[in-house]
């Protein structure tokens, strides 16, 4: 899967789950945590989505804001922990 494909899938998931399907203005740098797009319950849903969809072996200590603050870092996280 290319970075672009991963980005597109996560973007669609976030738009559908947290933004009533409206992905306007949601780019790879949009702050997801600061803006509250993904709130404290949403983070669990997002994590479970990326874990399942991309078969991630994601250690708990990697569940840090730096790894989830926007789509760009989420793509990097997916690439780092995809099961080979």
């Amino acid at each position, binding site marked *: 899967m290319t970075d672009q494909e991963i980005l597109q899938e996560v973007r669609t998931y976030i738009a559908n789950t947290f933004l009533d399907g409206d992905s306007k203005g949601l780019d790879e740098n949009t702050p997801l*945590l*600061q803006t509250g797009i993904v709130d404290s319950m949403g*983070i669990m849903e997002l994590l479970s989505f990326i874990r399942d969809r991309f078969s991630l072996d994601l250690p708990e*200590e990697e569940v840090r804001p730096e790894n989830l603050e926007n789509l760009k870092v989420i793509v990097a996280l997916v690439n780092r922990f995809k099961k080979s």
Partner: protein
Amino acid sequence: MDFSWTPEQHQLYDNALAFARDRLEPCVQKKVGFRQCFLACGEFGLLGLCAPESYGGVGLGALDTARTFEAVGRGCTDSGLVFAAAAHLFACVMPIVEFATEELKQQVVPKLCSGEFVGANAITEDVSGSDAFAMHTAVEKDGDDYIITGSKSYVTNGPFADILVTYGTLNPAHGHMGIVGLVIPTVTAGVTVGAPFEKLGLKGAPISSVYYERCRVPAGARLGRESQGSSVFTRSMHWERACLFGMYLGVMDRQLEQVVAYLKQRRQFGKPLSKQQVLAHRAADMKLRLESARLLLYRACWKIDCGEDATQEIAMSKIATSEAAVQSALDAVQLHGGNGVMEEMGIAQMLRDAVPSTIFSGTSEIQRNLIARGLGL
């Protein structure tokens, strides 16, 4: 599905009811003071019901803990005091038990369980109530230490607290993931506690603001990981929203006993009030509301004990119990007529103590938001 209690669970309930009636209530009536009452609660084990025995707790699960609070709520008329004990246990002791370092647990949990230390939870601010994670209280890292600056409002037990489980933000850009939970002794330089608030009900629970002016605590004071503060708080609210409300079941039991006795004894128009079907139906509705709330609460606690995600069940149980407490208290006042408004019957106090229950631990609206979220809305 098995709805029966074991003989041990019956015994636990009976012991807690006896403690509340024979030990705690006399302390309340004699006005021995908050600290003395707290020590009595500690002696019985109330302050550490669900904390492990190795730290001075009783080691109960959520269901038995809630049921114990139910018995104490039934047996003790000072719901403010029982609320204070529950807030101490669920929002201060439990986050420490579940997320603190071993060293910190050894240091403070036994003293919190015995009542030697009074614990509090400080998250709400003037700017952030329901939107709790929008807090402004700032946490700065300085080497291995944290420095905290800000102010918290509505801190239950604040005026007597020795230990404050306090939440602040390390980085507002990280939203709820920037929140960190810290265990701060009240004696720490820079902590000031405000005067106790006057309030509508739960008067036995002292509540105040707490101010932090560049308070320094070591890294060992942190609960969980740096980004985990919101999860630590949410988990403590699961305990509180499920188990604390056991107290209101007990209050409603006591209230209904009082209502039934009054309807049978008070005569108007040549017969007891109980013979007016409209009044008997109101009592029947109180019973229905109480038992519905009870089932939801037990199920929420059972799910916690199963180690499953109980967010939805807890939210439903919290709404059902708190809203039943308010409505049934209003019904009890109405059924008692003028006597319901007079202080000596204790009915008016039940109403005042019920009103805050739809607000603290997350308002009814916020619980409905959680349920709606679970429905995919």
